[in-house]
């Protein structure tokens, strides 16, 4: 039994890594679930139970974290950054950023400069935290349908 759990965890982790690697590309939950060799519904359910949030929310927080990084480190415009990190509309990006970070991208940029720490540590430890209630609700990968997801 334990061995099965370990192998399944490892497959889910591989799918999570795929999101960290390809966050800037258009991703859909079916494609990411395929990395773990499970159905879409089983993937969402088990990812949530193993990592404490839905795959969609994990990806959104990765994208928002990367946008925070670019806001701190570069002079790129907010619209450019929005598309750089995989969002497909400026409105969705701003709404998601505000929901997760608690302020607008432009305000965040004014308040924060570059951080002299390795990128891997920044990626791991500065991904914005979120309340569990919200983390558990978001289940769709489609930006436009995210708000309506169960």
């Amino acid at each position: 039994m334990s061995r099965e759990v370990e192998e399944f965890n490892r497959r889910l982790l591989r799918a999570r890594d795929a999101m960290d690697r390809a966050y800037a590309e258009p991703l859909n939950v079916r494609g990411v679930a395929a990395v773990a060799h499970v159905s879409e519904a089983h993937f969402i359910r088990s990812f949530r139970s193993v990592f404490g949030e839905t795959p969609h929310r994990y990806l959104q927080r990765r994208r928002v974290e990367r946008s925070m990084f670019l806001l701190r480190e570069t002079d790129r415009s907010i619209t450019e950054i929005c598309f750089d990190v995989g969002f497909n509309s400026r409105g969705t990006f701003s709404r998601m950023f505000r929901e997760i970070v608690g302020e607008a991208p432009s305000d965040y940029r004014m308040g924060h400069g570059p951080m002299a720490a390795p990128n891997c540590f920044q990626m791991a430890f500065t991904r914005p935290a979120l309340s569990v209630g919200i983390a558990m609700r978001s289940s769709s990968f489609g930006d436009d349908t995210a708000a309506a997801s169960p």
Partner: protein
Amino acid sequence: MINKLNVTSVWVLDKEEALDFYVNKLGLEKGNDVKQGTYRWLTVRVPGDPGVEISLEAPGPPVQDEATAAQIRELITKGAMGGLVFVTDDVRGLYETLKKRGVTDFTQEPTDNFYGTDMGVRDPFGNAIRILQRKKAAPEAKA
């Protein structure tokens, strides 16, 4: 005062499989390999850098009871147990070499940063490994 890091350990699920990955795939060399009863003191290290050993440790009795060991194994496979950072002088070359050796679990392809170029890969169990090629220019004092 402390002079040097001597041994650090990495949790693995299977020592033989770990040895194969860390030596034959990643390119480290085998260090100590000593048996006493059921215990095997097994380490790997960076080639040419004896004295800093990475001990490959499998959770279980007599150190942990089986239930605790099962919890640790679950955490390892969730990628929740930390990892190692290495330095190389050719990260892109190493990336190609690892791919040729059949490594597929990359967490990040070689990527340029202000401190150099780094990449990420996982061992077969889920531990994170980062490999950094430092920037050539003299290190500037950054706050």
